[in-house]
């Protein structure tokens, strides 16, 4: 391996001079070229950066769920009643359900683009563990869907006359809850990415699994309004996140393999 890059430029002369030696060198060099440069952290970091860049260049995909969230929230006072008292009682559930649907809406594109241009196959071929790379993609999805939704929710809360004192809990519970939603939803997205009309099926698969998160998320806001203290709900949301962080990456990886390999 003493052959430096400069000498490597003219391999033909080398090969003729000392055949066996350079053959082994060539072999070695191929192995080093095939090895991953850097370990798992580099790969995860690269996936994170790539997905963030891609999404930041397609801003509409980031903005659409937010617009959808605002629109759905606008529909309810029109459909039910503009009475602030009535709205205040249903606001926690409404905000949570609308945010959940907005997050669901964005799931279909989580792996779709990568599947269509073939980069998902490359992701499967990398020597790094697929669960971690999938986790990186989900993290980006949460960062650009769940987190903005959580930050936007208090504004819509004002419009629904959400009682004071629950705004911070609303944002925090949504931030915590949408992370679990992204993880669970990614399983469904990975299972349906190979199907041409996976959208409706995806919601059928994923929505029943969202129910615990919805119960404790909306419950946290409800508890904050009642003055009961939302710590217990938030703790359970955190527990759900821990559990899905632990298990979902494996299911995502297995589902991606199923969708790609046939």
């Amino acid at each position, binding site marked *: 391996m003493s052959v430096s890059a400069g000498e490597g430029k003219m391999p033909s002369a080398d090969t003729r001079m000392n055949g066996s030696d350079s053959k082994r060198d060539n072999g070695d060099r191929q192995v080093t070229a095939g090895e991953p440069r850097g370990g798992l952290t580099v790969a995860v970091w690269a996936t994170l950066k790539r997905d963030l860049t891609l999404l930041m260049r397609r801003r509409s995909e980031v903005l659409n769920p937010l617009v959808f969230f605002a629109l759905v929230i606008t529909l309810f006072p029109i459909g039910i009643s503009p009475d602030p008292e009535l709205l205040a009682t249903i606001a926690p559930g409404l905000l949570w359900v609308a945010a959940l649907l907005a997050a669901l809406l964005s799931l279909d594109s989580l792996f779709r683009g990568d599947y269509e241009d073939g980069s998902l196959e490359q992701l499967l071929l990398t020597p790094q563990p697929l669960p971690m790379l999938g986790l990186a993609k989900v993290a980006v999805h949460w960062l650009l869907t769940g987190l903005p939704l959580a930050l936007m929710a208090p504004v819509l809360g004002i419009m629904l006359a959400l009682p004071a004192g629950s705004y911070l809990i609303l944002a925090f519970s949504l931030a915590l809850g949408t992370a679990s939603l992204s993880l669970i939803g990614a399983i469904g997205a990975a299972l349906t990415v190979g*199907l041409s009309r996976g959208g409706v099926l995806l919601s059928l*698969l994923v929505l029943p*699994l969202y129910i*615990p998160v919805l119960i404790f998320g909306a419950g946290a806001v409800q508890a904050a309004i009642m003055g009961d203290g939302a710590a217990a709900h938030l703790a359970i949301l955190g527990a759900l996140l821990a559990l899905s962080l632990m298990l979902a990456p494996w299911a995502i990886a297995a589902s991606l393999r199923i969708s790609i390999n046939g």
Partner: protein
Amino acid sequence: MWAFINKLRSPKWFYAISERLLPWFWVAAAALILVGSVWGLAFAPADYQQGNSFRIIYVHVPAAFLAQSIFVSMAVCGLVYMVWKIKVADMVAAMMAPLGAAMTFISLFSGAVWGVPTWGTWWMWDARLTSMLILFFLYLGVIALRGAFASRDSASRAASVLAMVGVINIPIIKYSVDWWYTLHQPATFTVTGRVGMPMEMWVPLLIMVLGFYSFFIAVTLMRTRSEILRRESNKRWVRDLAGGER
């Protein structure tokens, strides 16, 4: 042990052994359900609070039991299929799914009918009914996912993964729905007469539960047998079988 597992791999062996088992389960199912329903509907004493309307329990509870255990067995079959690539396990899981969904629907429907005399309404967001409803959606998801794939192999594996994900979620859903229900406790009484049930009511219920389980096993075996014939229709032993019977 290994010989047994290797035998399990073979659809042919499953076909042969199920042929011998099937009559027993049919007889058991028919006898148990007949005895249980006659005993439960005609001879068990009426409930002091609900009168005769409580007798719907003899359909409701066995169906609810089956609804839950079929999902669990579906996930176990999925795991067996994913780990050991035993095709029969996947066939069994595929054949169980519609039956499980049907049982969930029966328990939901009988629960709704039972709601009329006890709650005065067809539907209440009762914790058990709600988690049953969610279970029903989970079944529909598994069935729909299996139907959506063009290739049978990926359909099987996708349905297996989803069944396993679902089975991990079922207890979480159940406990969170219970929690949610206690927070929003409505002002009506719930059916809690099941715990301190007297022996004369309880024994026919047990018989009915056993009967439903035998029925489930018999139907699954039968459906799996026809599925084996369908999937293995180009194998020599199936052709021989068809030729021999013709």
